[in-house]
């Protein structure tokens, strides 16, 4: 385990760690509260509405009011629920997300712990998330929840594979950096520092596309919100929860969305290092990371308001037939280029070609739809005269 450069104010390491954890938790709570507000506001604008306007100036304390309301609500447990499973499910989903935030570098020296296997740690810990969701699904004693839990399990397990492979592609090309002598690293801080001159999205656009898609799926965001499908299984595994337990799930959802976004911006967008460099002031680095993560979140909201939901079998076939082969191809290409020490521009070129192919496939499928002239494409008949 590596530590960040210096302990704060020269305090002992364990006090330093506690202070860092508390800071991260506090900022996470604040970010989550304002993400709920932000989501409502942004989505409302996408839908030509106003969103919250009443509570505070421009509805700014709406999130806090909602949180207060949720905390003070009655906590209901169904009679036929499995008591311990039901009650611990929210914590089982929340703890992995919290643990993941501990490993993220928000600025050069800003994070709780700088792990040598940071990337591995993040996706290993986030894989545990599914346990809590399955617990909620099975423990609620509700068939909607059961369906939601099973759907979530199937979906998250299968999307983890392309996700991990796309991250692996990035880990591979870190080996081509200066002074690495062909050995890559999984240290997130180091990966970020390598991107001082150009973010890895330039070298690996295909991996980024795959990462973003799989991330949406891991977060249960549209168009992959199948486990919580509001119009089918009315919230899925969360259907029986109320009050503080439900707000725990909500907290988990937004905290993991933020965590994933920071993670994604660290791995692909250059985190705190690009474009201001590793020597920039810490406030600039922190601001860069946050702005990039909010760009990610904005993209998630945008997708959510625009597209409908996939069906579970289409979701699965998209994962196994499109994303997985694409990610494997990306990894193979990277392998060839790195082994033969071909120039890095080739990495960008091949990956961009792959991404273009992926986009082309999707666009080509979308073009099969009937033309906009609806009445013309459909046979219009005059009915027989009476």
């Amino acid at each position: 385990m590596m530590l960040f450069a210096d302990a704060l104010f020269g305090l002992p390491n364990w006090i330093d760690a506690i202070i860092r954890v508390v800071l991260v938790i506090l900022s996470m709570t604040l970010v989550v509260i304002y993400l709920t507000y932000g989501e409502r506001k942004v989505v409302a604008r996408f839908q030509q509405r106003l969103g919250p306007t009443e509570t505070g100036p421009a509805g700014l304390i709406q999130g806090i009011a909602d949180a207060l309301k949720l905390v003070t609500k009655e906590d209901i447990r169904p009679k036929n629920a499995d008591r311990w499973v039901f009650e611990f499910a929210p914590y089982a989903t929340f703890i992995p997300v919290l643990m993941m935030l501990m490993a993220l570098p928000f600025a050069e020296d800003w994070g709780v712990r700088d792990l040598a296997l940071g990337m591995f740690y993040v996706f290993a810990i986030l894989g545990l998330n599914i346990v809590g969701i399955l617990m909620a699904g099975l423990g609620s004693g509700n068939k909607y929840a059961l369906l939601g839990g099973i759907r979530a399990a199937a979906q998250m397990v299968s999307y983890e594979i392309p996700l991990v492979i796309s991250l692996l592609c990035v880990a591979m090309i870190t080996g081509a950096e200066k002074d690495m002598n062909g050995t890559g690293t999984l240290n997130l801080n180091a990966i970020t520092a390598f991107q001082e001159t150009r973010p890895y999205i330039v070298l690996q656009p295909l991996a980024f596309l795959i990462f973003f898609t799989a991330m949406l799926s891991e977060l249960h965001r549209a168009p992959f919100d199948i486990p919580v499908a509001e119009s089918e299984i009315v919230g899925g595994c969360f259907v029986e929860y109320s009050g503080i337990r439900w707000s725990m799930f909500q907290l988990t959802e937004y905290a993991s969305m933020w965590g994933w976004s920071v993670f994604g911006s660290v791995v692909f967008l250059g985190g705190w290092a690009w474009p201001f460099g590793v020597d920039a002031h810490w406030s600039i680095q922190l601001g860069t990371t946050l702005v990039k993560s909010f760009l990610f979140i904005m993209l998630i909201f945008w997708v959510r308001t625009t597209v409908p939901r996939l069906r579970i079998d289409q979701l699965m076939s998209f994962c196994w037939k499109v994303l997985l082969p694409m990610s494997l191809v990306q990894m193979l290409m990277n392998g060839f280029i790195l082994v033969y020490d071909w120039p890095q521009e080739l990495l960008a070129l091949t990956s961009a070609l792959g991404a273009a192919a992926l986009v082309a496939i999707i666009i080509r499928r979308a073009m099969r739809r009937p033309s906009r002239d609806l009445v013309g494409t459909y046979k219009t008949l005059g009915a027989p005269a009476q």
Partner: protein
Amino acid sequence: MTVWPEERLATVDSFNTVDMTINVGPQHPATHGVFRMVLTVDGELVVDCEPYIGYLHRGLEKLTENHDYRQSMGWWDRTDYLAGMACEFAYCMAVEKLGNIQVPERAEYIRVMMAELSRLLSHFMFFGAFGADVGSFGTSFVYAWRERERIYDFFEVVAGDRMFPTYFRPGGLQMDLPEGYEPLVRQLLGSLEQGLEDFDGLLTGNEIFVERCRNLSPMSKERAINLGMSGPMIRATGLAHDIRKAEPYSIYPNLKFNIPVGKNGDVFDRFMVRMAEAYQSIQIVKQCLDLMPGGLVLNPDLPKTLRIEEGECYVRTEGTKGEYGVYGMARGGNKPYRMKLRSPSFCNLSALKEMVVGHYVADAIIILGSLDIVLGEVDK
């Protein structure tokens, strides 16, 4: 705990699963009201479906039998509550047929105009709610609501009420259109057309939407006829049947419009037929504006109390969801002896079981949405 039936355990020697029943509704976001269906599912696959209706039964027919002809208007508004005026149209036509009452021509034009605007109301509701069923997180809903609000505003200008205007009367209309209505309507139509294009871009052009709806629960013409389907449901199967053309009523013979027809009768065709129909409705309203004659809007010879001696009729109109028929029987007095509503949603919904079985749960919701039921009409 589920008890595994002995006989099933005995017949299957390998890994065994047990069907599960899911209760969908009456409080469920996808049932569009208070409809309930019990799905028996094998994993995600629906193996049986039992619809239950009647949660909104208000005894429409009994009430009509016990009220004066004009008093019942309000009840009939509330059958297809998404398109009140189209229902008033059918009811008034039934009373007029029974009592042999003439309607001024201007009133007929205004009626058709209002009925077609009601059709747009209903279809917009379908686009919005169907988009929500497919999972587009309320965006389509809000789009639909924006356009519906414009039509409702116009209804308020004309009749003083939005959803249940009770604007029609046996023998004509309650009152004439307000001064300067024409620019209002033309502006309204322009924005509606723009709204339809928006939907076209949002839903029709969406790969996921097309992928989920195409080839879902296709239906043949013969089966649709046998199941008693009507309206866009039957036109989606490729049968060019529209009561406005096949058995014309009111001033529809004077108007030019097309009947959009589908090919496979699948969910996508149902959506597209309604989309194309909405464009046609806009054309019809435009023609009504162009051809609008002057004169009275209510037959001046009507008595204060309608008394109808004896008669029978079955009036069919192309309602927003299909064939909206009213069977009326009069035997003297100021009340009908019997008034029966043949509601299109009711007949379309009765085919639900056949359409849903064998599909995924998520698709069952979409198929239910594609039927475009309105529970006020189903439950009477």
